[in-house]
């Protein structure tokens, strides 16, 4: 099922949580909503589910306007961060609940419900635990039951709110791979919320990066990482270094020196230069490059991170060096970013 979010705005007691957000989700896609706390990602997910109503705008399931439908009729599978399993019901009753509460002819016979529950338990690899109560399960098992319960109603779209947030690192990684497998097997259109970029980039077909109630960028993991389109995405996803620069006659300058990067299409004036610390070219001499004094250096696994002080204003940037690079304290290092992007400097608050 395709899901289309069209110009949706959501205010809570006049406080805007989402500003005019639009998003197209293709049928069968696995999408991550990624952003820091307060970015509106959970609000967007709850709006799609129908747990909240938009202040403005429309949400379409296929061609149907879903915003007019009650949550009960929307037929979405929602997996809550803390599972929200029914404590007084067995695992099988939890999974069968959505079928049991249907009315009249829509309700399958008890036997069919039981069969379906154990089928789903097989799918989530918990066969044989039908009779257990949630209290008797581990965190990872509860999460699987919650997913099975959501899938039992054959939802049009599967929504997961921080699905692995409450689990420890090991179980998290395991379930992540497993969720991808299940998705590929069942083909549900799936949207999940996370603040963990690794999780989003690894798992999702497309990642929606959100900040302060707006969508910053939508794209595949490669697009998001390699061509971030805003200072926020640059600094939120992966590591980045940022330097204030000047653009003049299609060249990038730091103070009075050209650093050998040409930007023919950039507007002249102050700008911010973003690049990845590991994506730099080290140079020997320095004409047309960035040079700085090593202020601090630390060993990070297979590489060495150095903090450089650049120019008279002692701007600090991070650059990654090979372990065997002879950079010592106070020694000078010259480099030029391989891949970089300029953003106009006059966007206060956006680049943090």
């Amino acid at each position: 099922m395709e899901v289309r979010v069209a110009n949706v705005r959501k205010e809570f007691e006049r406080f805007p949580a989402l500003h005019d957000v639009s998003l197209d989700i293709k049928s069968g896609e696995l999408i991550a909503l990624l952003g820091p706390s307060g970015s509106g990602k959970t609000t967007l997910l709850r709006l799609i589910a129908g747990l909240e109503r938009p202040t403005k705008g429309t949400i379409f399931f296929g061609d149907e306007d879903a915003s007019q439908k009650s949550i009960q009729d929307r037929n979405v599978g929602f997996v809550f961060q803390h599972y929200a399993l029914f404590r007084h019901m067995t695992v099988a009753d939890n999974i069968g609940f959505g079928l049991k509460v249907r009315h009249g002819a829509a309700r399958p016979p008890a036997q069919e419900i039981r069969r379906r529950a154990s089928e789903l338990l097989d799918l989530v690899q918990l066969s044989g635990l039908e009779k257990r109560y949630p209290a008797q399960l581990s965190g990872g098992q509860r999460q699987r039951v919650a997913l099975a319960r959501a899938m039992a109603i054959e939802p049009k779209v599967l929504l997961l709110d921080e699905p692995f947030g409450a689990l420890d690192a090991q179980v998290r990684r395991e379930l992540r791979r497993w969720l991808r497998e299940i998705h590929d097997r069942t083909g549900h259109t799936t949207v999940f919320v996370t603040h963990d970029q690794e999780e989003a980039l690894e798992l999702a077909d497309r990642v929606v990066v959100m900040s302060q109630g707006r969508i910053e960028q939508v794209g595949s993991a490669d697009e998001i990482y390699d061509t971030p389109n805003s200072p926020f995405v640059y600094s939120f996803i992966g590591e980045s270094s940022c330097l204030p620069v000047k653009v003049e006659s299609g060249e990038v300058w730091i103070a009075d020196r050209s650093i050998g990067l040409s930007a023919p299409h950039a507007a002249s004036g102050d700008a911010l230069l973003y690049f990845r610390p590991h994506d730099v070219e080290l140079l020997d001499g320095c004409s047309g490059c960035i040079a700085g004094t090593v202020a601090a250096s630390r060993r990070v696994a297979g590489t060495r991170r150095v903090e450089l002080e650049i120019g008279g204003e002692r701007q600090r940037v991070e650059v990654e060096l090979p372990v065997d690079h002879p950079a010592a304290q106070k020694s000078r290092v010259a480099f030029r970013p391989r891949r970089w992007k300029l953003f106009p400097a006059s966007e206060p608050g956006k680049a943090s």
Partner: protein
Amino acid sequence: MADPEIKSYEPHHESQSAAVTESRPVRIVAMAVAFAFLAIFLLMPLIVVFHEALAKGIGAYSEALASSDTRSAIRLTLLVAAISVPLNLVFGISAAWAIAKFEFKGKAFLTTLIDLPFSVSPVISGLVYVLLFGAQGVLGAWLKAHGVVILFAVPGIVLATVFVTFPFVARELIPLMQEQGNGDEEAALSLGANGWQTFWYVTLPNIKWGLLYGVLLCNARAMGEFGAVSVVSGHIRGLTNTMPLHVEILYNEYNAVGAFAVASLLAGLALVTLVLKTLLEMRYGAEIAATRGH
């Protein structure tokens, strides 16, 4: 906990979607039922007390309160509360200290024992003292031989009151002190404070609002206790009549104004207690133990 973004943005109940609240008509019916129930069972009895007390005018009211029997009943009630509340205060702190600060065998049993008066009929609470100190009682003959009067006298009333009110302070303090843990006390001790200093400067400030809350409830019950006191008092006018007992006597004599006049004082005490209790809960809710009621 939930993602902080849900928490800080989460709308309050009234603006929530149909998923987690009832439809408007159902809400209105539920509220109407609740209010009607509370009005009939709580509000009207309270109103009737003041209405009946003033039924014959303010003159009759103040006259009823001025009678010497009424005044001595008030004095006795104050005296009984003045003895039994401090006793139970000391006991409550002491029991809470032992139970909350230490791990020892039989702790659960001790806690159950403290709760006992809540599950015993007040009449039985009085009865046990009659069986102990009465003329046919275990100690009755001995007491009589030595001229000690407990039953049908102030000591008996105090004992019965202590019995029914002693859980209040302890029950309030035990969960509070358990929740606060031993960290503060251990810090004070490590800084060189002795046991008493630790209690005065560290523990007591931590528990003072909970303590006040317990004392408040304890006092309300001590001044209002009827059944237990009734059994041990002997109902001697002007001597062993507390205010609640005096209410009964006046009522049975068909002196409605008198009975309700004294009752209105007790109802006033109840209202003051409720107001103070609510203020304490509002301002120091976090510093009062989670267990409410009784």
